């Protein structure tokens, strides 16, 4: 077995506490993923990535730094990966999906705060995340009040830059977002020591758009009446997309998509006849949060699509480069891609989200929609009412759930989900 302790020590990690974190992952992974039947063979790669999540990939990042490259951490899909990549940076979505980190986060943040924020900050406070220890810069954003203030705390213990994002989808909002992009370019040029070029940015856009396209292709297979891959496995693949090498991920995800497409042709499915199909919408589901997907998929239902930041919002739209012939025009195009089509509840109004939920529910033949929101997330929880009313008008059943990362409410969640699934039966 490769011994990564020296590497972790070199990153300034708390090895004893990190060992406790590492002890929790293997049994959780086996219980969540390896109890499933007929998983696609293509999931082997993603199993390996998770098994080596604090090993091989960290070594790759450190090798990149040794060659002069920079690692940029982020927590939000509004941070443009294309620009980081164009400046020879690697962007990684930082860990924020485990209850393990929440107590450390609560040392510096209030308890009544989003668990994702607490876990993210806690991962750094506890020095138990090698990704966090590896980054040269964290790019935050003021999408919500919780994050806006949390960056002030993070800034004391990690190099942090905050993008100023708009709250409205207006001309003024776009102008602010466009300026924030320009400011981010300047900051990243300073950090990386590289200049943004037309060819470099074009290539980066093409790479990131290919990643989006392969995720779209994988998701499309879940529209089939006989679903070839579980929602849990698709969630794992999506989560890996946020920190894996882009080219390798594209290749492996394409192989998985091809296998799923073959399964559709042969009628092979991972769910028994009569399994109800659910769309999950709401707050992001980041690694290693697999809790609600597991409960849903062991309660007689399948998650066939996710309308959230770790789902369709991450990949559905592309950059329209057709009218761009300069760096500035490419940055305009990138800004439009992020501003126009990502319908996050941090914007007001946010009618586009309800439209997306209804559209996806129809496309993926969902029998019902689960609104899954993290505790203390004001924006998404308040927006739930709009989503509920819209779904009611469309005749689509809806279940609203609020939870965090702890396991204490799994029984209650299961009871409510089972009752909801039962209500969907003819």
């Amino acid at each position, binding site marked *: 077995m490769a011994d990564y302790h020296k590497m972790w020590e070199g990153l300034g990690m708390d090895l004893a506490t990190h060992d406790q974190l590492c002890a929790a992952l293997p049994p959780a992974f086996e219980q969540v993923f390896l109890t499933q039947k007929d998983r696609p063979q293509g999931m082997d790669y993603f199993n390996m990535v998770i*098994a080596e999540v604090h090993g091989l990939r960290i070594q790759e990042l450190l090798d990149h730094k040794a060659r002069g490259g920079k690692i940029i951490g982020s927590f939000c899909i509004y941070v443009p990966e294309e620009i980081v990549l164009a400046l020879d940076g690697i962007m990684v979505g930082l860990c924020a999906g485990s209850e393990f980190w929440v107590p450390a986060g609560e040392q510096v943040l209030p308890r009544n705060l989003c668990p994702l924020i607490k876990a993210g900050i806690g991962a750094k406070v506890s020095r138990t995340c090698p990704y966090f220890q590896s980054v040269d810069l964290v790019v935050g954003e003021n999408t919500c009040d919780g994050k806006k203030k949390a960056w002030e705390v993070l800034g004391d213990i990690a190099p942090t830059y905050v993008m100023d994002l708009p709250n409205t989808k207006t001309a003024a909002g776009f102008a602010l977002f466009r300026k924030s992009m320009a400011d981010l370019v300047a900051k990243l040029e300073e950090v990386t020591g590289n200049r943004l070029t037309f060819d470099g940015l074009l290539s980066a856009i093409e790479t990131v758009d290919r990643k989006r396209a392969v995720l779209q292709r994988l998701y499309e297979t879940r529209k089939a009446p006989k679903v070839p891959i579980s929602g849990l496995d698709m969630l794992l693949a999506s989560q890996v997309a946020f920190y894996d090498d882009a080219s390798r991920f594209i290749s492996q995800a394409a192989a998985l998509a091809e296998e799923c497409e073959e399964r559709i042709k042969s009628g092979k499915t991972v769910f028994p006849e009569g399994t109800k199909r659910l769309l999950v919408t709401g707050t992001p589901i980041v690694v290693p949060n697999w809790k609600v997907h597991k409960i849903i998929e062991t309660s007689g239902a399948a998650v066939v699509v996710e309308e959230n930041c770790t789902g369709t919002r991450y990949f559905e739209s592309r950059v329209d480069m057709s009218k761009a012939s300069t760096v500035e025009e490419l940055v305009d195009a990138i800004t439009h891609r992020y501003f126009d089509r990502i319908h996050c509840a941090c914007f007001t109004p946010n009618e586009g989200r309800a439209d997306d939920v209804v559209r996806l529910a129809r496309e993926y033949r969902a029998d019902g929609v689960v609104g899954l929101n993290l505790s203390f997330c004001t924006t998404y929880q308040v927006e739930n009412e709009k989503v509920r009313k819209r779904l009611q008008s469309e005749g689509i059943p809806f279940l609203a759930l609020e939870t965090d990362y702890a396991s204490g409410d799994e029984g209650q969640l299961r009871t409510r989900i089972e009752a909801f699934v039962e209500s969907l039966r003819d």
Partner: protein
Amino acid sequence: MVFAYALFKTATDGMILHRRLRELGVKDDICPTPRHLADSCGISLRFDAIAAGAVREEAGRLGIPIELVVQRP
């Protein structure tokens, strides 16, 4: 079922053996190594302990050093 785990020096070794076992029809899963079996992170192959002999034999044929551990219930 009683599970056994094969531990490896490198992830590449583990993936090579996994592919070979799949060709032979030996059912196994790639998984994170249980922490009580090793001090560091990395991949293991988990399989029915009944197949331990076959796994050891194939690893030997491929020249892949492994450590086999049977997980007693």
